[in-house]
């Protein structure tokens, strides 16, 4: 303790204030996270900060100060220092880490890829017209590996093609052409590297919630409930109509199939007989038109 106090005495007041400020933000919010901001323009960060201002506080600070602040806090908060990256911001919220992750994902926008950058996924150029009139661009596209030709007075991409495979670096020429074609292969925004909530550290793999899976789970759960209710004839507001319809349909089926001469099924029985007659008549008529009445 004495040594630490001794150590802190050497740092200027603004740094002390900054560390205190970080600690205070962590303590006054339920959740805080580490966000990677490397390569993101300051203007974009400003915009995200504004967009999130009602739900989260974004703080860009020096890693050394952040590290110091975290190390001065209890529980397993110091473990969060593992997620400090080259350029890391802190984010604070009272929402759940899952909500925080979702909010940050929503700030992401497609961006052009720079020459030499690694393609995160296959970069595909779709077949179709471009906005360019014929000119030198045709040759530039072709030399960048994009199959282009002239179609209806415009430069057009001849076929859909993977121009750069995932994991490969994007060549200079291709990067330029992709930009011109307004193809933005990168999704850029704040990357949540980890979130701390009440003693638990959540990593992105856990935080990336697949809403479509929940949607299909709900469909399945609702279906299960519906089936169980109907199949056990346990009536609920949602299934009583189906139960009545089922009972009626079964009764009607029985009536028609067993030829129960009851008023409720006569229409079906008469219709069935008529159709059978028509079917037999049409086959008979195929053999000999005189075998049946003219009106058949």
């Amino acid at each position: 303790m004495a040594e630490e106090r001794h150590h802190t005495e050497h740092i200027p007041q603004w740094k002390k204030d900054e560390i205190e400020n970080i600690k205070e933000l962590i303590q006054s919010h339920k959740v805080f996270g580490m966000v990677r901001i490397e390569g993101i323009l300051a203007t974009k960060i400003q915009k995200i900060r504004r967009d999130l201002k009602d739900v989260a506080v974004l703080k860009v600070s020096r890693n050394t100060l952040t590290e110091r602040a975290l190390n001065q806090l209890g529980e397993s908060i110091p473990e969060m220092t593992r997620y400090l990256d080259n350029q890391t911001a802190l984010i604070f919220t009272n929402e759940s880490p899952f909500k925080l992750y979702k909010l940050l994902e929503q700030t992401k926008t497609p961006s052009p890829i720079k020459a030499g950058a690694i393609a995160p996924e296959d970069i595909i150029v779709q077949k179709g017209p471009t906005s360019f009139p014929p000119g030198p661009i045709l040759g530039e596209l072709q030399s960048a590996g994009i199959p282009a030709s002239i179609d209806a007075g415009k430069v057009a991409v001849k076929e859909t093609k993977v121009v750069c495979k995932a994991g490969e670096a994007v060549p200079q020429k291709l990067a330029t052409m992709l930009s011109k074609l307004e193809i933005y292969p990168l999704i850029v925004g704040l990357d949540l590297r980890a979130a701390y909530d009440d003693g638990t550290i959540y990593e992105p793999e856990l935080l990336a919630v697949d809403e479509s899976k929940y949607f299909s789970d709900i469909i399945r759960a609702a279906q299960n409930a519906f089936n169980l209710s109907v199949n056990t004839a346990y009536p609920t507001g949602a299934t009583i109509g189906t139960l009545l319809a089922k009972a009626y349909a079964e009764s009607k089926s029985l009536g028609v199939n067993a030829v129960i001469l009851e008023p409720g099924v006569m229409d079906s029985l008469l219709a069935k007989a008529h159709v059978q007659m028509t079917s037999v008549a049409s086959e008979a008529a195929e053999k000999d038109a005189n075998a049946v009445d003219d009106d058949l």
Partner: protein
Amino acid sequence: MEYIYAALLLHNAGKAITEEAITAVLQAAGIEVNEARAKALVAALEGVDIEEAIAKAAFAAPAAAAAPAA
């Protein structure tokens, strides 16, 4: 279905669908008649518009044609 066929036969011929008529037709076909069913048939047809029921069947005909094609 024989009771229904008999009823439609009579209807088609413009005859009244009575228990006796049904019985006569079925017997002529060599079918042993169940009195209760003949009675029930006549009762069930009371108030039924046979033409209408048949007309609805006409709609179904194309369906019948489509089915075997499947």
